[in-house]
Protein backbone atom coordinates (compact mmCIF):
# COMPACT_ATOMS: atom_id res chain seq x y z
CA UNK A 1 0.00 0.00 0.00
CA UNK A 2 1.12 3.50 -0.78
CA UNK A 3 1.13 5.87 2.17
CA UNK A 4 -0.59 9.17 1.40
CA UNK A 5 2.02 11.90 1.19
CA UNK A 6 1.68 15.63 0.74
CA UNK A 7 -0.01 16.44 -2.56
CA UNK A 8 3.10 17.24 -4.51
CA UNK A 9 3.05 17.03 -8.30
CA UNK A 10 6.57 17.34 -9.53
CA UNK A 11 7.29 18.71 -12.98
CA UNK A 12 10.25 19.66 -15.13
CA UNK A 13 10.58 22.37 -17.74
CA UNK A 14 13.15 21.97 -20.52
CA UNK A 15 14.01 25.20 -22.32
CA UNK A 16 15.41 24.20 -25.69
CA UNK A 17 16.37 27.78 -26.37
CA UNK A 18 18.92 27.59 -23.57
CA UNK A 19 20.18 24.07 -24.13
CA UNK A 20 23.66 24.02 -25.61
CA UNK A 21 23.98 20.26 -25.70
CA UNK A 22 26.92 20.31 -23.31
CA UNK A 23 26.02 16.90 -21.82
CA UNK A 24 26.66 18.14 -18.26
CA UNK A 25 23.26 16.78 -17.19
CA UNK A 26 24.14 13.39 -18.64
CA UNK A 27 27.37 13.20 -16.67
CA UNK A 28 25.74 14.44 -13.49
CA UNK A 29 22.99 11.83 -13.83
CA UNK A 30 25.62 9.18 -14.45
CA UNK A 31 27.44 10.11 -11.27
CA UNK A 32 24.39 10.62 -9.09
CA UNK A 33 22.51 7.45 -9.95
CA UNK A 34 25.29 4.84 -9.98
CA UNK A 35 24.95 4.28 -13.69
CA UNK A 36 27.69 2.04 -15.07
CA UNK A 37 30.36 3.57 -17.27
CA UNK A 38 29.21 3.65 -20.89
CA UNK A 39 32.10 2.09 -22.80
CA UNK A 40 32.39 2.36 -26.57
CA UNK A 41 30.86 -1.04 -27.24
CA UNK A 42 27.71 -0.04 -25.33
CA UNK A 43 27.15 2.82 -27.72
CA UNK A 44 27.86 0.62 -30.71
CA UNK A 45 25.32 -1.94 -29.52
CA UNK A 46 22.79 0.83 -28.72
CA UNK A 47 22.83 -0.31 -25.12
CA UNK A 48 24.28 2.80 -23.46
CA UNK A 49 22.71 3.64 -20.10
CA UNK A 50 21.54 7.25 -20.30
CA UNK A 51 18.68 8.16 -18.02
CA UNK A 52 18.84 11.54 -19.66
CA UNK A 53 20.27 11.85 -23.14
CA UNK A 54 20.92 14.73 -25.50
CA UNK A 55 19.45 13.97 -28.93
CA UNK A 56 21.14 15.84 -31.72
CA UNK A 57 19.34 16.69 -34.94
CA UNK A 58 20.81 18.40 -37.98
CA UNK A 59 18.72 21.05 -39.66
CA UNK A 60 19.27 22.31 -43.18
CA UNK A 61 21.74 21.34 -45.87
CA UNK A 62 25.49 21.89 -45.86
CA UNK A 63 26.94 24.56 -45.78
CA UNK A 64 24.22 26.40 -43.81
CA UNK A 65 23.42 23.65 -41.31
CA UNK A 66 22.41 23.88 -37.68
CA UNK A 67 22.70 21.38 -34.86
CA UNK A 68 19.65 21.19 -32.62
CA UNK A 69 19.73 19.56 -29.20
CA UNK A 70 16.87 18.15 -27.21
CA UNK A 71 17.40 16.52 -23.80
CA UNK A 72 15.16 13.48 -23.46
CA UNK A 73 14.47 11.95 -20.06
CA UNK A 74 11.61 9.97 -18.59
CA UNK A 75 8.56 12.16 -19.09
CA UNK A 76 6.80 10.76 -15.99
CA UNK A 77 3.54 10.62 -17.94
CA UNK A 78 0.19 10.79 -16.19
CA UNK A 79 -1.14 8.20 -18.67
CA UNK A 80 2.11 6.30 -18.86
CA UNK A 81 1.85 3.50 -21.43
CA UNK A 82 4.66 1.66 -19.65
CA UNK A 83 2.82 1.25 -16.37
CA UNK A 84 -0.25 -0.90 -16.97
CA UNK A 85 1.63 -3.47 -19.05
CA UNK A 86 3.89 -4.67 -16.23
CA UNK A 87 2.72 -8.08 -15.04
CA UNK A 88 4.29 -7.73 -11.59
CA UNK A 89 3.47 -4.12 -10.68
CA UNK A 90 7.17 -3.23 -10.94
CA UNK A 91 6.27 0.23 -12.16
CA UNK A 92 3.38 2.45 -11.20
CA UNK A 93 2.45 6.08 -10.74
CA UNK A 94 2.93 7.41 -7.26
CA UNK A 95 0.82 10.24 -5.94
CA UNK A 96 3.57 12.83 -6.42
CA UNK A 97 3.25 12.55 -10.18
CA UNK A 98 6.42 10.48 -10.45
CA UNK A 99 6.56 7.28 -12.48
CA UNK A 100 8.45 4.96 -10.14
CA UNK A 101 10.35 1.76 -10.87
CA UNK A 102 10.65 -1.00 -8.25
CA UNK A 103 13.87 -2.87 -8.96
CA UNK A 104 13.16 -5.77 -6.63
CA UNK A 105 9.94 -6.71 -8.36
CA UNK A 106 11.13 -6.28 -11.92
CA UNK A 107 11.56 -9.57 -13.77
CA UNK A 108 12.64 -7.99 -17.05
CA UNK A 109 9.88 -8.77 -19.50
CA UNK A 110 10.92 -5.47 -21.17
CA UNK A 111 7.29 -4.80 -22.11
CA UNK A 112 7.47 -1.38 -20.46
CA UNK A 113 10.41 -0.41 -22.62
CA UNK A 114 8.65 -1.67 -25.72
CA UNK A 115 5.63 0.40 -24.81
CA UNK A 116 7.51 3.61 -23.96
CA UNK A 117 7.10 6.15 -26.78
CA UNK A 118 10.19 8.06 -25.66
CA UNK A 119 12.45 4.96 -25.38
CA UNK A 120 13.84 6.25 -22.08
CA UNK A 121 13.64 2.95 -20.24
CA UNK A 122 17.04 1.26 -19.93
CA UNK A 123 17.54 -2.46 -19.65
CA UNK A 124 20.56 -3.89 -17.86
CA UNK A 125 21.97 -6.11 -20.57
CA UNK A 126 25.12 -6.83 -18.55
CA UNK A 127 25.99 -7.06 -14.89
CA UNK A 128 27.05 -3.48 -14.07
CA UNK A 129 30.70 -3.04 -13.06
CA UNK A 130 32.97 -0.16 -12.13
CA UNK A 131 36.73 0.19 -12.10
CA UNK A 132 38.24 -0.11 -8.61
CA UNK A 133 39.09 3.59 -8.54
CA UNK A 134 35.41 4.49 -8.75
CA UNK A 135 34.22 2.26 -5.91
CA UNK A 136 34.04 5.17 -3.48
CA UNK A 137 32.31 7.35 -6.00
CA UNK A 138 29.12 5.30 -5.86
CA UNK A 139 26.14 7.05 -4.31
CA UNK A 140 25.07 5.28 -1.10
CA UNK A 141 21.47 6.53 -1.50
CA UNK A 142 20.92 4.72 -4.78
CA UNK A 143 20.53 1.01 -5.36
CA UNK A 144 23.01 -0.69 -7.66
CA UNK A 145 20.85 -2.51 -10.15
CA UNK A 146 21.55 -6.10 -11.09
CA UNK A 147 21.47 -7.36 -14.67
CA UNK A 148 18.17 -8.19 -16.32
CA UNK A 149 15.97 -5.43 -14.93
CA UNK A 150 14.66 -2.13 -16.20
CA UNK A 151 15.74 1.23 -14.85
CA UNK A 152 15.01 4.82 -15.73
CA UNK A 153 15.02 8.41 -14.56
CA UNK A 154 13.48 8.77 -11.10
CA UNK A 155 13.56 12.58 -10.86
CA UNK A 156 16.34 11.75 -8.37
CA UNK A 157 13.86 10.50 -5.82
CA UNK A 158 16.67 9.91 -3.34
CA UNK A 159 17.40 13.62 -3.31
CA UNK A 160 13.71 14.31 -2.86
CA UNK A 161 13.60 12.10 0.21
CA UNK A 162 16.85 13.54 1.53
CA UNK A 163 15.43 17.01 1.08
CA UNK A 164 12.26 16.06 2.92
CA UNK A 165 14.28 14.66 5.77
CA UNK A 166 16.35 17.82 5.96
CA UNK A 167 13.31 20.06 5.92
CA UNK A 168 11.17 18.24 8.39
CA UNK A 169 13.69 16.74 10.79
CA UNK A 170 16.81 18.90 10.86
CA UNK A 171 15.10 22.04 9.59
CA UNK A 172 17.93 22.78 7.19
CA UNK A 173 17.68 24.15 3.70
CA UNK A 174 18.83 21.14 1.67
CA UNK A 175 21.12 23.19 -0.56
CA UNK A 176 22.19 26.26 1.38
CA UNK A 177 22.04 24.53 4.75
CA UNK A 178 20.57 27.57 6.54
CA UNK A 179 18.25 26.91 9.45
CA UNK A 180 14.57 27.18 8.78
CA UNK A 181 12.72 29.20 11.47
CA UNK A 182 11.01 26.84 13.93
CA UNK A 183 7.55 28.05 13.00
CA UNK A 184 7.87 26.87 9.42
CA UNK A 185 9.18 23.43 10.32
CA UNK A 186 6.01 21.58 9.51
CA UNK A 187 5.54 17.91 8.74
CA UNK A 188 3.68 18.56 5.47
CA UNK A 189 6.70 18.94 3.20
CA UNK A 190 5.50 22.37 2.20
CA UNK A 191 9.04 23.63 2.63
CA UNK A 192 10.02 21.72 -0.49
CA UNK A 193 10.01 24.85 -2.57
CA UNK A 194 11.61 25.40 -5.91
CA UNK A 195 15.34 25.37 -5.55
CA UNK A 196 15.68 23.65 -2.24
CA UNK A 197 15.39 20.31 -3.93
CA UNK A 198 16.94 19.69 -7.34
CA UNK A 199 17.64 16.61 -9.41
CA UNK A 200 21.27 16.18 -10.39
CA UNK A 201 20.72 17.17 -14.01
CA UNK A 202 18.91 20.38 -13.09
CA UNK A 203 21.53 21.28 -10.53
CA UNK A 204 24.36 20.77 -12.98
CA UNK A 205 22.83 22.57 -15.98
CA UNK A 206 25.09 25.58 -16.65
CA UNK A 207 22.50 27.48 -18.69
CA UNK A 208 19.47 26.74 -16.51
CA UNK A 209 17.88 25.01 -19.46
CA UNK A 210 16.32 22.57 -16.98
CA UNK A 211 14.00 23.78 -14.24
CA UNK A 212 12.29 21.62 -11.68
CA UNK A 213 9.60 22.27 -9.11
CA UNK A 214 6.23 21.33 -7.73
CA UNK A 215 3.65 22.18 -10.36
CA UNK A 216 1.55 23.98 -7.74
CA UNK A 217 4.53 25.90 -6.40
CA UNK A 218 4.09 29.53 -7.47
CA UNK A 219 7.48 30.67 -6.20
CA UNK A 220 9.00 30.05 -9.63
CA UNK A 221 8.23 30.11 -13.34
CA UNK A 222 7.53 26.35 -13.59
CA UNK A 223 3.93 26.68 -12.53
CA UNK A 224 3.07 29.16 -15.28
CA UNK A 225 4.48 26.94 -18.00
CA UNK A 226 2.46 23.96 -16.83
CA UNK A 227 -0.69 26.04 -16.58
CA UNK A 228 -0.13 27.22 -20.15
CA UNK A 229 0.36 23.65 -21.35
CA UNK A 230 -2.82 22.47 -19.61
CA UNK A 231 -4.73 25.40 -21.08
CA UNK A 232 -3.76 24.25 -24.56
CA UNK A 233 -5.13 20.78 -23.86
CA UNK A 234 -8.35 22.30 -22.52
CA UNK A 235 -8.90 24.49 -25.56
CA UNK A 236 -8.33 21.49 -27.82
CA UNK A 237 -10.93 19.55 -25.87
CA UNK A 238 -13.42 22.37 -26.32
CA UNK A 239 -12.85 22.04 -30.05
CA UNK A 240 -10.96 25.35 -30.15
CA UNK A 241 -7.78 25.99 -32.09
CA UNK A 242 -4.36 26.64 -30.52
CA UNK A 243 -2.13 29.09 -32.36
CA UNK A 244 1.25 27.37 -32.29
CA UNK A 245 3.09 30.54 -33.28
CA UNK A 246 2.13 32.39 -30.08
CA UNK A 247 3.31 29.84 -27.53
CA UNK A 248 6.60 28.14 -26.81
CA UNK A 249 5.22 25.52 -24.48
CA UNK A 250 4.60 22.05 -25.80
CA UNK A 251 4.68 18.45 -24.62
CA UNK A 252 6.49 15.67 -26.44
CA UNK A 253 4.07 13.56 -28.56
CA UNK A 254 1.00 15.36 -27.32
CA UNK A 255 -1.22 13.31 -29.65
CA UNK A 256 -0.44 10.04 -27.90
CA UNK A 257 -2.23 11.48 -24.91
CA UNK A 258 0.37 10.41 -22.37
CA UNK A 259 0.11 13.76 -20.51
CA UNK A 260 3.81 14.06 -19.58
CA UNK A 261 4.96 15.90 -16.45
CA UNK A 262 7.81 17.36 -18.48
CA UNK A 263 7.14 20.30 -20.78
CA UNK A 264 9.45 21.68 -23.44
CA UNK A 265 9.92 25.29 -24.52
CA UNK A 266 10.45 25.74 -28.24
CA UNK A 267 13.69 27.10 -29.61
CA UNK A 268 13.48 30.74 -30.70
CA UNK A 269 15.14 31.29 -34.06
CA UNK A 270 16.91 34.67 -34.09
CA UNK A 271 18.55 33.90 -37.44
CA UNK A 272 16.40 31.30 -39.19
CA UNK A 273 17.99 29.40 -42.07
CA UNK A 274 17.25 31.07 -45.37
CA UNK A 275 15.57 28.59 -47.69
CA UNK A 276 18.38 27.40 -49.95
Amino acid at each position, binding site marked *: *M*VTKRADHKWGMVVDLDRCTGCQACVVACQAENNIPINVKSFYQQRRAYQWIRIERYWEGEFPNVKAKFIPILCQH*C*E*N*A*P*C*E*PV*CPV*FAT*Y*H*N*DEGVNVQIYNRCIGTRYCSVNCPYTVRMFNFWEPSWPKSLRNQLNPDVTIRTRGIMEKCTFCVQRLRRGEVNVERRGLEPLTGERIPAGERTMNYRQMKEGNYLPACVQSCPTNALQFADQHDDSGPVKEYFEEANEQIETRHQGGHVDESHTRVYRLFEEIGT*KPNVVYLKKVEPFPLEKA
Partner: protein
Amino acid sequence: MAKEPILGLFETADNAADAGDALKAAGVPQTDYDFLTDTPYPEGAFGERHESHRLYIFPFVGALIGLTVGIMLTSMTQLAYPLAQGGKPILSLPPMAVVTYESTMLTAIVFTIIGIIFESRLPSFKQGLYDTRITEGYIGVLVNVDEGQLTQTQALLTQAGAIDVVRKEERLTA
Protein backbone atom coordinates in the same frame (compact mmCIF):
# COMPACT_ATOMS: atom_id res chain seq x y z
CA MET B 1 -30.40 -65.51 -5.72
CA ALA B 2 -27.21 -63.79 -6.89
CA LYS B 3 -26.66 -62.89 -10.51
CA GLU B 4 -23.77 -64.39 -12.44
CA PRO B 5 -22.10 -62.70 -15.39
CA ILE B 6 -21.60 -64.62 -18.60
CA LEU B 7 -19.90 -63.29 -21.70
CA GLY B 8 -20.52 -64.49 -25.23
CA LEU B 9 -18.08 -63.53 -27.96
CA PHE B 10 -19.35 -62.99 -31.51
CA GLU B 11 -17.43 -62.57 -34.70
CA THR B 12 -19.96 -60.47 -36.55
CA ALA B 13 -22.22 -57.70 -35.38
CA ASP B 14 -25.25 -59.44 -36.90
CA ASN B 15 -24.85 -62.49 -34.67
CA ALA B 16 -24.45 -60.25 -31.65
CA ALA B 17 -27.64 -58.44 -32.59
CA ASP B 18 -29.38 -61.81 -33.03
CA ALA B 19 -28.21 -62.77 -29.57
CA GLY B 20 -29.69 -59.54 -28.28
CA ASP B 21 -33.04 -60.38 -29.87
CA ALA B 22 -32.90 -63.90 -28.51
CA LEU B 23 -32.21 -62.62 -25.01
CA LYS B 24 -35.09 -60.18 -25.28
CA ALA B 25 -37.31 -63.01 -26.49
CA ALA B 26 -36.12 -65.17 -23.57
CA GLY B 27 -37.37 -62.44 -21.27
CA VAL B 28 -34.04 -61.27 -19.94
CA PRO B 29 -34.58 -57.65 -18.82
CA GLN B 30 -32.66 -55.13 -20.93
CA THR B 31 -30.76 -53.87 -17.89
CA ASP B 32 -29.16 -57.30 -17.55
CA TYR B 33 -27.27 -57.57 -20.83
CA ASP B 34 -24.85 -55.26 -22.53
CA PHE B 35 -22.78 -55.19 -25.70
CA LEU B 36 -19.01 -54.78 -25.43
CA THR B 37 -17.42 -53.50 -28.64
CA ASP B 38 -14.16 -51.94 -29.73
CA THR B 39 -16.01 -49.52 -31.97
CA PRO B 40 -18.69 -46.94 -31.30
CA TYR B 41 -21.63 -48.53 -33.08
CA PRO B 42 -24.44 -46.06 -33.77
CA GLU B 43 -26.91 -45.86 -30.94
CA GLY B 44 -29.52 -48.62 -30.98
CA ALA B 45 -27.61 -50.68 -33.53
CA PHE B 46 -28.05 -53.80 -31.39
CA GLY B 47 -31.48 -52.79 -30.18
CA GLU B 48 -29.86 -52.25 -26.79
CA ARG B 49 -31.39 -50.16 -24.04
CA HIS B 50 -31.36 -46.36 -24.27
CA GLU B 51 -28.80 -44.88 -21.93
CA SER B 52 -29.84 -41.59 -20.31
CA HIS B 53 -27.24 -39.21 -18.89
CA ARG B 54 -27.04 -35.79 -17.25
CA LEU B 55 -23.74 -34.73 -18.80
CA TYR B 56 -24.98 -31.34 -20.03
CA ILE B 57 -25.41 -30.06 -16.48
CA PHE B 58 -21.69 -30.25 -15.71
CA PRO B 59 -20.39 -27.55 -18.07
CA PHE B 60 -23.05 -25.11 -16.93
CA VAL B 61 -22.26 -25.63 -13.26
CA GLY B 62 -18.57 -25.34 -13.99
CA ALA B 63 -19.06 -22.18 -16.03
CA LEU B 64 -21.04 -20.57 -13.22
CA ILE B 65 -18.39 -21.41 -10.64
CA GLY B 66 -15.61 -20.20 -12.91
CA LEU B 67 -17.48 -16.99 -13.65
CA THR B 68 -17.97 -16.11 -10.00
CA VAL B 69 -14.43 -17.07 -9.03
CA GLY B 70 -13.01 -15.12 -11.95
CA ILE B 71 -14.97 -11.98 -11.19
CA MET B 72 -14.14 -12.11 -7.50
CA LEU B 73 -10.45 -12.80 -8.12
CA THR B 74 -9.92 -10.08 -10.71
CA SER B 75 -11.94 -7.39 -8.97
CA MET B 76 -10.61 -8.12 -5.49
CA THR B 77 -6.97 -8.25 -6.52
CA GLN B 78 -7.36 -4.88 -8.19
CA LEU B 79 -9.11 -3.33 -5.23
CA ALA B 80 -6.67 -4.89 -2.77
CA TYR B 81 -3.78 -3.28 -4.60
CA PRO B 82 -4.87 0.21 -5.65
CA LEU B 83 -1.85 1.38 -7.62
CA ALA B 84 -2.53 4.03 -10.25
CA GLN B 85 -1.25 2.82 -13.61
CA GLY B 86 -1.28 4.76 -16.84
CA GLY B 87 -4.41 6.67 -15.95
CA LYS B 88 -6.46 3.51 -15.97
CA PRO B 89 -9.21 3.18 -13.38
CA ILE B 90 -8.30 1.14 -10.31
CA LEU B 91 -11.11 -1.26 -11.21
CA SER B 92 -10.58 -1.77 -14.92
CA LEU B 93 -13.42 -3.80 -16.39
CA PRO B 94 -12.22 -4.83 -19.87
CA PRO B 95 -9.12 -6.64 -18.56
CA MET B 96 -11.32 -8.28 -15.96
CA ALA B 97 -13.51 -9.55 -18.76
CA VAL B 98 -10.58 -11.29 -20.43
CA VAL B 99 -9.28 -13.14 -17.37
CA THR B 100 -12.79 -13.95 -16.15
CA TYR B 101 -13.61 -15.43 -19.54
CA GLU B 102 -10.59 -17.73 -19.33
CA SER B 103 -11.42 -18.92 -15.84
CA THR B 104 -15.00 -19.55 -16.88
CA MET B 105 -13.98 -21.69 -19.82
CA LEU B 106 -11.36 -23.54 -17.79
CA THR B 107 -13.76 -24.62 -15.08
CA ALA B 108 -16.43 -25.44 -17.61
CA ILE B 109 -14.06 -27.78 -19.42
CA VAL B 110 -12.66 -29.37 -16.26
CA PHE B 111 -16.17 -30.02 -14.99
CA THR B 112 -17.13 -31.53 -18.34
CA ILE B 113 -14.19 -33.94 -18.12
CA ILE B 114 -15.22 -34.90 -14.60
CA GLY B 115 -18.76 -35.33 -15.83
CA ILE B 116 -17.73 -37.60 -18.68
CA ILE B 117 -15.68 -39.84 -16.41
CA PHE B 118 -18.41 -39.91 -13.82
CA GLU B 119 -21.27 -40.51 -16.21
CA SER B 120 -19.49 -43.34 -18.04
CA ARG B 121 -18.98 -45.00 -14.64
CA LEU B 122 -15.20 -44.85 -14.77
CA PRO B 123 -12.80 -45.72 -13.28
CA SER B 124 -14.12 -49.22 -12.69
CA PHE B 125 -11.12 -51.44 -12.08
CA LYS B 126 -13.13 -54.24 -10.53
CA GLN B 127 -14.73 -54.93 -13.89
CA GLY B 128 -16.85 -57.94 -14.48
CA LEU B 129 -16.21 -60.46 -17.21
CA TYR B 130 -14.02 -59.22 -20.02
CA ASP B 131 -12.07 -60.74 -22.84
CA THR B 132 -9.14 -59.21 -24.68
CA ARG B 133 -10.51 -60.49 -27.97
CA ILE B 134 -13.14 -57.74 -27.76
CA THR B 135 -10.53 -55.17 -28.78
CA GLU B 136 -9.77 -57.37 -31.77
CA GLY B 137 -13.14 -56.68 -33.26
CA TYR B 138 -15.11 -59.46 -31.58
CA ILE B 139 -18.34 -58.30 -30.03
CA GLY B 140 -19.03 -59.39 -26.49
CA VAL B 141 -22.52 -59.85 -25.13
CA LEU B 142 -22.30 -59.61 -21.35
CA VAL B 143 -25.32 -61.09 -19.61
CA ASN B 144 -26.11 -61.16 -15.91
CA VAL B 145 -28.40 -64.06 -15.14
CA ASP B 146 -29.32 -66.14 -12.12
CA GLU B 147 -26.93 -68.98 -11.48
CA GLY B 148 -29.66 -71.44 -12.40
CA GLN B 149 -30.06 -70.09 -15.88
CA LEU B 150 -26.34 -69.92 -16.71
CA THR B 151 -26.38 -73.04 -18.81
CA GLN B 152 -29.40 -72.25 -20.95
CA THR B 153 -28.13 -68.70 -21.44
CA GLN B 154 -24.86 -70.21 -22.61
CA ALA B 155 -26.74 -72.46 -24.99
CA LEU B 156 -28.77 -69.49 -26.20
CA LEU B 157 -25.62 -67.49 -26.90
CA THR B 158 -23.89 -70.34 -28.71
CA GLN B 159 -26.86 -71.03 -30.97
CA ALA B 160 -27.02 -67.30 -31.71
CA GLY B 161 -23.54 -67.81 -33.17
CA ALA B 162 -21.13 -67.14 -30.32
CA ILE B 163 -17.70 -68.51 -31.13
CA ASP B 164 -16.89 -68.69 -27.42
CA VAL B 165 -18.67 -68.21 -24.13
CA VAL B 166 -16.71 -67.15 -21.05
CA ARG B 167 -17.88 -67.77 -17.50
CA LYS B 168 -16.45 -66.60 -14.28
CA GLU B 169 -15.03 -69.83 -12.88
CA GLU B 170 -13.29 -70.61 -16.14
CA ARG B 171 -11.75 -67.18 -16.00
CA LEU B 172 -10.64 -67.77 -12.42
CA THR B 173 -9.02 -71.10 -13.28
CA ALA B 174 -7.46 -69.67 -16.44
